[in-house]
């Protein structure tokens, strides 16, 4: 792959001025790629770009604040980078952003729904509009549209929104189904009690590992999360649905107007709870009220970071 | 299956007396409510206990009264977190839970016949107090006993009520020090390691027992080494975050050793064998 080789070359050239460059290498099993921290040209040789590069590399950036670091991004990852810049959690001048046009990433959970135990998958590759997965039963082919992450179906930002090195020809936005809208529609069609029961049932299997929180690039409290503090004591250590849902509600509210919908919370969830829906819901509210989308304009001020005396859609004085 | 007692279940106890030692250290004298438990209760100097404020939680403190004085168990608590703040709100007559004794103790048997040098800084004086009083109660078993106790300022000095007695005893050489000059202070001024060097206790037949904040320990160990103390002649006690107190919950380990059961007392020789994770 010519573009990837060119990208590697650019990274090798940039390495001497950088702490490291964050990208991906093949993960412990097919269908996965793992974040790679490149410090030497030999590390750069391991870099991959393809349909399994799901992890959002932006999650690591705030920890490097104060040091110059490189990062390889997909279009959606770049939105997180933009939001981090907007929130001053990273400094643009300390980042060197590398990117290529992204054709989408696979959703392991969807593939598992099709082929069963991912532990038995010995190989996986994308061939155009098909994902081919090898299992002990043989090769299974599934349409890419049914294997990719929901966000990729109608991805509006396949090319990084911020980059210093962009290799390859930019892609047009995807024209597929808006899976997020479908999901919202399903939830909104439920009566409140039915919706609550649905979430209670889903959250029951939550193990409170907080992979959702730690995988979130916009989660800024890090080691000082309300999930563990006793002052304030908003959630206890009891393992009931009430506590689990309370944490999700707090997390979602903290992300209102900040979440770039990268979906890492849901991808990281080991028990496959569709928690991205909660963040999407709040983003829709923010879009509705402030006509704002997170992580697309480095110059924009996130609406909940500021206020206007007269907000167009908040009728405070008319109450 | 054996029917060992539930290791998590505290004894109920009543605070019989409190002493506000310093602005942030408060001493609690505690009696177990059950007469049978009180009679059966034994411990060794250096062992610790978990104090419970129900609804808030448990924290670990050394029993700083000696086993030779069993009218009450004494704990001195520096206010630092949630449980210690809750303890500080309690007074005589209030009830708490006590899980004790836990952990190991000072090797006082092998210290018999030797000179003893106590070096305590701040709240680190608490574990030394139990051994000091134990030795004073068995005075003939030990050689010269020196005590160097330092605090930041006169008002940070705990156990004030006992200091005149300690200073006045013929069989105990007490040196008090504070970090900086203060009006009315009649004792030494200077950091503990420096004062220790000036005191220059002979290492020959001595054991040094030290406890205090990490930075003080670091320089005190250096001073002791310079004075000729071998690693095996230095005893200290460690502190870690603990929950269970019985070697299970996984947070106080340093490599294979669990501070709650293998400690808190270690010789410097033993400490050096442990991985570096204090």
């Amino acid at each position: 792959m010519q573009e990837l080789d060119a990208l590697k070359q650019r990274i090798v050239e940039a390495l001497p001025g950088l702490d490291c460059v964050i990208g991906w290498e093949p993960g412990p099993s097919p269908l996965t790629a793992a974040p790679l921290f490149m410090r030497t040209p030999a590390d750069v040789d391991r870099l991959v770009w393809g349909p399994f590069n799901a992890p959002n590399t932006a999650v690591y950036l705030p920890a490097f604040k104060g040091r110059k670091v490189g990062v390889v991004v997909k279009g959606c990852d770049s939105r997180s980078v933009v939001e981090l810049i907007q929130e001053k959690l990273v400094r643009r001048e300390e980042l060197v952003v590398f990117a290529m046009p992204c054709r989408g990433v696979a959703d392991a959970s969807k593939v598992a729904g099709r082929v069963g135990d991912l532990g038995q998958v010995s190989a996986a590759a994308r061939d155009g509009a098909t994902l081919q997965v090898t299992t002990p039963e043989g090769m299974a082919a599934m349409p890419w549209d049914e294997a990719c992450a929901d966000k990729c179906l109608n991805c509006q930002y396949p090319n990084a929104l911020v980059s210093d090195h962009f290799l390859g020809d930019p892609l047009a936005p995807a024209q597929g189904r808006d899976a997020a809208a479908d999901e919202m529609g399903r939830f909104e069609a439920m009566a409140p009690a039915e919706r609550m029961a649905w979430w209670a049932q889903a959250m029951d299997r939550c193990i409170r590992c907080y992979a959702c929180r730690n995988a979130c690039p916009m989660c800024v409290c890090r080691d000082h999360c309300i999930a563990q503090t006793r002052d304030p004591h908003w959630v206890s250590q009891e393992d009931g649905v009430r506590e689990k849902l309370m944490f999700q509600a707090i997390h979602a509210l903290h992300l209102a107007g900040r979440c770039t919908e990268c979906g890492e919370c849901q991808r990281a969830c080991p028990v496959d709870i569709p928690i991205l829906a909660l963040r999407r819901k709040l983003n829709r509210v923010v879009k509705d009220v402030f006509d704002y989308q997170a992580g697309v304009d480095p110059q924009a001020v996130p609406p909940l970071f500021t206020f206007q005396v007269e907000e167009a859609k908040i009728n405070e004085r008319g109450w | 299956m054996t029917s060992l007692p539930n290791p998590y279940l505290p004894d109920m106890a009543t605070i019989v007396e409190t002493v506000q030692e310093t602005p942030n250290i408060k001493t609690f004298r505690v009696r177990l409510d059950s007469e049978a438990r009180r009679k059966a209760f034994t411990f060794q100097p250096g062992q610790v206990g978990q104090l419970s404020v129900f609804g808030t939680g448990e924290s670990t403190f050394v029993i700083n009264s000696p086993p030779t004085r069993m009218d009450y168990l004494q704990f001195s608590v520096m206010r630092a977190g949630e449980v210690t703040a809750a303890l500080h709100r309690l007074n005589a007559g209030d009830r708490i839970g006590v899980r004790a004794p836990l952990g190991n103790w000072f090797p006082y048997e092998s210290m018999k016949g030797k000179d003893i040098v106590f070096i305590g800084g701040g709240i680190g004086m608490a574990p030394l107090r139990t051994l000091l009083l134990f030795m004073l109660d068995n005075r003939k078993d030990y050689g010269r006993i020196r005590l160097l106790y330092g605090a930041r300022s006169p008002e940070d000095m705990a156990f004030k009520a006992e200091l005149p007695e300690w200073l006045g005893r013929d069989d105990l050489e007490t040196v008090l020090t504070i970090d900086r000059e203060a009006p009315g202070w009649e004792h030494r001024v200077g950091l503990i390691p420096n004062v220790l060097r000036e005191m220059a206790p002979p290492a020959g037949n001595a054991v040094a027992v030290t406890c205090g904040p990490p930075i003080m320990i670091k320089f005190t160990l250096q001073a002791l080494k310079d004075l000729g103390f071998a690693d095996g002649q230095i005893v200290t006690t460690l502190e870690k975050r603990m929950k269970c107190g019985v070697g299970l919950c996984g947070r106080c380990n340093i490599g294979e050793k669990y501070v709650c059961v293998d400690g808190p007392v270690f010789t410097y020789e033993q400490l050096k064998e442990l991985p570096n994770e204090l």
Partner: protein
Amino acid sequence: MDQAKFLPDASLAAWLAELSAARLVLAPRREGGAVVFKPYDPAVPLELTRDATVPPKGAVFPACEELMRYRRVKDPEKPGQPLLEVEESLPEGGVVVFGSRPCGARGFTVYDRVFDAGGLNDPYYAARRKATAFVTLACREAGSACFCHWVGSGPADPDGSDVLLTQVPGGYVVRAVTEKGAALVGSGLFSPADRREGEEAAAHAKARESLDDPRDLAPARQALLDAFDDMEFWSQLSAKCLSCGACTYLCPTCYCFNITDEAQGNEGARLRTWDNCMSFQFTLEASGHNPRPTKAHRLKNRVGHKFSYYPGLHGGAIACCGCGRCIRSCPVGVDIRQLVLAAVERAREKSHD
């Protein structure tokens, strides 16, 4: 133990009904894309084709359990100083864990050495352990993250199980491993296994063959100690780690816990909950000092505990059952096999220096 028996596929539901009559049966089912143990419900299909995402450790070591309850009651003598009543909350009732894999059941042998041995008896653990039986299903095939054979186990390991089931054409060969297990397979639903024992052996051999060549992890004990002060090594290995708790909470052998009080007015409970050594708060002291301040320190302790400290304290036994859940469910592909092997390799290189 007893002779091997045979249970036809058609009788499985009847056996589960029989087991459910006397006690709670936990069985794996699919929820979303995950497989979790839930109380058996004949209306919900079992998921036995793959290992559960969440191991059955909650059966013996719940994510949250009450250790004791307390209540403040008015003391008529001294109205301002309430009396304290504390009552321990010991667990009751028996459980059968049905359909776990050998690794999930074997995890408790790691707990046993710590929680119910050597003069220490954790009464909560001991009561549940005694009241829980494991009906385990031998694995037919290794998965890519499986390494049970590296840690002294295997796909048909009965260690920690009470009954071992092996799928054969038409049903299951059933072996009682313990007395507790023998009591579960006494009904008329079972017939002698006879010739099916050969099929059972073949299934075990086939599963064994699907595993890669095991690596010797014994040198890890010293190698991890040697690497203790090499923080550069640990920083690199932990760079991608998110420091979340997916690995620890899904681990059948991770037993670190927290104890917290939850108050409601004048009463409340002291709880024991799963805790996570990868969390910053785990070792944070009230003074603000933290002996394991970075994820590199914490990952070092996690790997060290399993492959060095625990073996050092328990005759070389490794505190890992090789189930691979930490690898499969890690959002960023941290592979504990690579971490241990990296430490062994580091020691080997140093010894050549």
